[in-house]
């Protein structure tokens, strides 16, 4: 019964999108829109099939995903411990908060020019842009999370004989987890846009590059194909991975804040 309902919900969700596809085709035919302005569905599908067959699409998607995975991973690994350490002491956290806010505002796209100068065009510069988009936002949110943990909880754990390490692992990390996950979601949102922008400027492989090169040849069908893929990929990352993760951590550990 519940399974049936979920299926129904999925159908109800995708139905408007199909409606959009139909509207697209009808409008393109009815107004006889120039292919160079906006393509019909047919050519877009054809471009999709062609690019899958010659392997370029997979290569572009693979490059983009590899960059974002690596940059995000390095960002999280560095930002979470640093954010916790800075958040432990109220004095330090009030001191560094303005700094982190300043840099998380700059995070991502604003670093593209200097990253391309430091690392040259290519993998290094793009990964750096993603890394710092994730790093500052996650560090800032981790710090906020740690400072929101009531002092009593830390004192309670300490008076029950927990050492520094145990307090870190069993109180601070779980307590800050909901904020950390929210930070990762926001940071990845910035990183994804930064990735597309950086790929348009600074590389020769990746989804952003695919779009930007297609523009040079007025191949709108490739551009639209790329846009749809970018949209679907982000929906998959955000709705299927990050949103459930966020919900789960808030349900599981969010209580700590209300304690």
């Amino acid at each position, binding site marked *: 019964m519940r399974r049936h309902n979920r299926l129904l919900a999925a159908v109800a969700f995708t139905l408007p999108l199909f409606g959009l596809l139909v509207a697209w085709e009808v409008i393109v035919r009815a107004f006889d829109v120039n292919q160079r302005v906006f393509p019909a569905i047919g050519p877009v599908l054809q471009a999709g099939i062609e690019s899958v067959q010659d392997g370029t699409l997979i290569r572009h998607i693979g490059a983009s995903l590899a960059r974002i995975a690596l940059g995000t991973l390095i960002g999280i690994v560095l930002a979470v411990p640093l954010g916790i350490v800075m958040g432990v002491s109220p004095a330090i956290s009030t001191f*560094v908060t303005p700094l982190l806010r300043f840099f998380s505002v700059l995070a991502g796209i604003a670093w593209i020019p*200097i990253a391309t100068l430091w690392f040259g065009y290519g993998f290094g510069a793009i990964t750096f842009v993603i890394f710092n988009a994730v790093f500052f936002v996650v560090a800032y949110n981790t710090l906020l999370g740690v400072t929101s943990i009531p002092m009593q909880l830390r004192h309670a754990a300490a008076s029950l004989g927990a050492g520094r390490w145990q307090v870190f692992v069993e109180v601070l990390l779980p307590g800050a987890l909901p904020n950390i996950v929210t930070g990762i979601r926001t940071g990845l949102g910035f990183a994804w846009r930064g990735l*597309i922008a950086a790929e348009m400027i600074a590389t020769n492989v990746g989804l952003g590059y695919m779009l930007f090169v297609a523009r040079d040849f007025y191949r709108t069908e490739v551009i639209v194909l790329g846009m749809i893929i970018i949209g679907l990929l*982000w929906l998959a990352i955000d709705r299927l991975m990050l949103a459930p993760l966020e919900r789960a951590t808030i349900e599981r550990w969010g209580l700590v804040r209300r304690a």
Partner: protein
Amino acid sequence: MKAVPAWLRLWSAYVRWTARWPALAAVVPFVPVVVLWAVVAESGIFPRVFFPGPMEVIRSFGKLMYNGILPAYLEDSVVRLAAGTAVGMALGIPIGLLVGLSDRAHKLLWPILLFFQAIGDIAWLPILLIWFGFGLGTMTFVIVYTVLFPIVLNTALGVRSVPLELHRAAQSLGATRARVVWEVVLPGALPNIVTGLRNGLGYGWRALIAAEMIVGTSGIGFLMFDARRAGSVVEIMLGMIVLGILWYIVDSWVLAPIERATGQRWGLVTR
């Protein structure tokens, strides 16, 4: 009695001063960062060309202010962002109200809204360039597009969070549909609308910079990218600092007060 160490006395003085002037707390933490930056730049670990010091950046600030490039570009960026945000809000709030109030509109539009939000502003740039060329049309479209979705989605969320009893209470007191929307739904959704505005500006800001870099002919993003072409790290750093300070001002002098005011005035409704 043990003497109080000097650093502790210094720290307590800092705490006292920042309690009196909170603005100080937003400035002083940057002092050690700038000092560290200067020391690293002086030490010559990195080639000077790739890693200039603060003095060079200040000098280039003076130069660009004097010849009028920086004020002109800054004005261009701010005007673009303000215009885009205004249009985005004018479109976004009504759509959000519609999606939040009507179940049918919600079912129909929600998946489409999520999908178009996911495509992301920057991915539109190539096709926009074909449509509008390198110019203001492209830039405005990108910013409006970016600001629009967070506002629509958050407005809809806010509208749906207004308890049904409040609708009914207003209606049973004789309010027409329009008055319910104006006096119950809109104020109730206001805190969420402001949150949406903040998110939208956060994304819109980045989209503007990216658009100025890729298609720009003026603006802070263009300044930075032009400097990159010329290999001038000094001007890139200057651009980044200007961007950061500008956002800081927008955030703490414009957004935060609005957020506080609406939260205090209307935030109760959602509880």
